[in-house]
């Protein structure tokens, strides 16, 4: 007759709440080992890029004409290229280029996406119609032609690559932000703010923008990897960062192909570096997306939550997070 009695133990000491950033990294390490590995790679890229001058044993364009096409040795750890330049130094400085392009273009991508997406999604109507047709046209237009045209007019260079990649990608990414904004603007707090007399600008800055932070972060992390690949592709085709500045894509291009049979290390090292960084960024980006997805919020570390079964599996595996469930036999 009596139902089962459930006993919930109350912890004698309340767990201190972590800050969101710390919480994120703790959860990253605990739940996403591959994401952690990716984060380490991204961190390594950042550190290498920033401190290239300290890490590289030689200058990236320091030529040793008598040591051309040397294989890896104690003097040149990764070998030399056709001009006797140290491959390790060029790969390290190439990391700087990738870092700058990755961060710069991804940041520009986000700024453009947020600007277009926010205005388009919030204002709606003719503004949305016009902006989305513009976005449609940009998405359909072959980006490579645009790249080539811009490079032919203004010449190749690091800033040009960042600008072109960031702008074009941002226009495409605005769709994601627009979708999020359209969902947010249906919320009660937006109506409330409007009823209280808040203007469009205030609503966008105080209510909409903070709530699109999650998809924005995801756009950023995803964009970083894709932008690095795009820059490598442009440089491989000869339209990216011009020589002698080392870019991994450019290093894979003409000179590596010309000397592939004689000095395969000229292609292998930048290729490996590029593969590792892209893999790491993708893993990290996937982990970021999984961790900050609202559907999972509270599924493990917080109250409530709708979960997708992952929370239940986690509970089963580790016990309670904030309590312990005991079955009491009748």
């Amino acid at each position, binding site marked *: 007759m009596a139902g089962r009695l459930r006993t919930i133990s109350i912890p004698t000491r309340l767990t201190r709440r972590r800050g969101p950033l710390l919480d994120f990294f703790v959860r990253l390490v605990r739940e996403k080992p591959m994401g952690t590995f990716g984060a380490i790679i991204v961190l390594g890229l950042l550190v290498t890029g920033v401190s290239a001058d300290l890490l590289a044993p030689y200058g990236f*364009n*320091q*030529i040793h*004409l*008598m040591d*051309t*096409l*040397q*294989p*890896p040795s104690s003097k040149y750890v*990764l*070998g030399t290229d*056709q*001009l*006797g330049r140290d491959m390790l130094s060029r790969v390290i400085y190439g990391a700087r280029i990738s870092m700058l392009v990755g961060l710069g273009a991804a940041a520009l991508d986000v700024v453009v996406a947020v600007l277009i997406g926010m205005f388009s999604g919030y204002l709606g109507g003719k503004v949305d119609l016009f902006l989305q047709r513009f976005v449609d046209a940009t998405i359909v237009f072959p980006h490579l032609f645009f790249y*080539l045209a811009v*490079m*032919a007019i203004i*010449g*190749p260079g690091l800033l040009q690559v960042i600008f072109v990649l960031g702008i074009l990608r941002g226009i495409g990414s605005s769709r994601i932000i627009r979708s999020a904004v359209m969902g947010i603007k249906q919320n009660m707090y937006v109506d409330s703010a409007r009823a209280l007399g808040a203007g469009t600008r205030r609503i966008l800055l105080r209510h909409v923008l903070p709530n699109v932070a999650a998809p924005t972060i995801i756009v950023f992390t995803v964009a970083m990897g894709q932008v690095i690949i795009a820059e490598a592709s442009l440089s491989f085709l*000869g*339209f990216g960062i*011009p*020589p*002698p500045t080392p870019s991994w894509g450019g290093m894979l291009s*003409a*000179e590596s*192909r*010309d*000397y592939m*049979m*004689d*000095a*395969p*290390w000229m292609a*292998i*090292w930048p*290729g*490996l570096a590029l593969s590792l960084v892209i893999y790491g960024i993708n893993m990290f980006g996937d982990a970021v997306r999984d961790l900050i997805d609202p559907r999972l919020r509270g599924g493990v570390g917080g109250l409530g939550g709708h979960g997708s079964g992952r929370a239940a599996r986690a509970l089963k595996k580790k016990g309670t997070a904030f309590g312990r469930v005991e079955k009491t036999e009748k």
Partner: protein
Amino acid sequence: MRKGAIWLCLSCIMVVALVLSACQPAPTTEPSEEGTRVVGEVTPGEEEEAQEEDKGIVEPSEEAKVVTEATTPKYGGTLTYALVSDIRGFDPNIVNVDAECLTLHITNEELMTGDWAKGPAGTGDVSWIMPGLFIPEHNRGAIAESWEMPDEQTLKYSIRRGIHWHDRAPAFGRELNAEDVAYSIHRKYLIPGTEVYENTVEEDRIISIETPDKWTVVVTVPAHTLGAYFQGIGAETWIFPVELGDANITSWEGAIGTGPYIITDHVIDSSVTLDRNPRYWAEDPVHPGNRLPYPDKVRQLVIEDQATRIAALQTGKIDRYRGLEWKDGERLMKGNPELNYIRYLTHVSPMIWMRMDKPELPFDDLRVRRALSMAIDRDAIIEGYFQGNAEKFCHPILPVPDMSDMFVPLKEQSAETQERYEHHPDKARELLAEAGYPNGFKTSIVTHKDYADMLSIVKQQWSEVGVELELDVRERGAWRSIMRGGGHEELLAAQITNIYYYRPLAYLEDYIPQYNRSFGVDEYVEEYFEEKLQPYIGVLTDDVLRANLRELAPYLCDLCWAIELPSQYYYTMWQPWVGGYHGEYSVGRGNHEDWPKYVWIDEDVKRQYTGR
């Protein structure tokens, strides 16, 4: 988990394999053991030449292998070679013949052509490697059987009988006569709107073209232009049928000539197929009695990618490849020892051009130009970057046998010129200080990526004397437009075609100003030109002109109007079943790729190597 572990292991194995392959031993730098072995007829005079004092001349036979198994001329087979880009047209009035219409050289003919028998296949007097030379004594009649210059304004050609047009519209196999020749000369020189017409000043135009009979053409020209028209009409005018009228040839079906081959197919951006002209008139000058051509078909495959062209040569898909860079040539020598080859210097030299018209820039000061040249260690570039496969002094006259009587070796040049081709960074700093740049200066150079490597070396070497060079690397089309428009602000990297034997004026008036807007013939060489060269431009006996060109070259070197960079060697390689070939390219003035009619394909030998 297990699956993940397996994938992780496989990935690690791949990475380790890549790393191990990257750590292979350094490539050997010993020269090829093939050496120089020429089998067959020894070119007369070759042994004596080897014993002469070293005149700085680079003989193609010094680095050559011609061991052909196809020693007996044979008819039949298909000769296949690659084009870097598709042909763009079939009419020289529309397209650039040299670069865009290579089929014309084997479908059509001129009044005279180079004598194959004077080349490596015969006496060896000329190599036929360079495309621009016009040396009358090395030519023979083609459409013209003979010619004469009765006075200083008249050219008279006797037209060869028995030459027939291809059996297609509009001539349908008719016999060629003087009217066709007169029409063709008029078509090239006297039609407004064409490039030649627009580039010819009024006082230099042809005065009259007459055909007193069916087999004679008489051309009257201004007196001072006789030599130029002798070359232009004789060796640079393609003959077309008079029925063509005002029309231009715009498709392969309309391409008509009297040459050894007839275009039978053109697949855009893929291939061109030409069939043997069964009524072709010429005989092999080396094997008299043999009617040309030997191969039944010629196929030109459009292969834009260099790696693909090389692979096609290695697998026997193409029979010959010209223009292999030295590193590819050396690799193929080891990987495909059956290939024959010659090594040669191309007729263009990479140069750094300077804006000497801007007084605010340092380059109008000869001391600065000499200093910049002295700061470059060309020997180190040749040894380290080119692995010995380059020459440092090729401008303005190439050190090749065909120009040996005009070439002045570096050791016979002035002391200043010799000095600036050596590496003297201390002297360079002194000169810069004298010129008012004790701390050097900053400058920039417009280039395309092909020169980026060499300019990176120059950048480092110039930095040692305080000159900071910034590379402005442009896409090739953008670079070309800057080059042609003279839009470079300070420096420009561009190659120059070295002096063409009979066109020194073109060299000085066209090429130099094209790269350096400031440079005018008048400013620097006016006195010399008027006195030494101008009177002889129309001269038909060339000994005086060649002597004066030999005298001009050191004078130009002393001016240092551009800084020469090392010119690399290239290879021409061909299959062992191609007989009668020694690396020729242009048999006569501007006859690019007209050699196919003289060579043969030995299908038996080909089958031994390829199985097909």
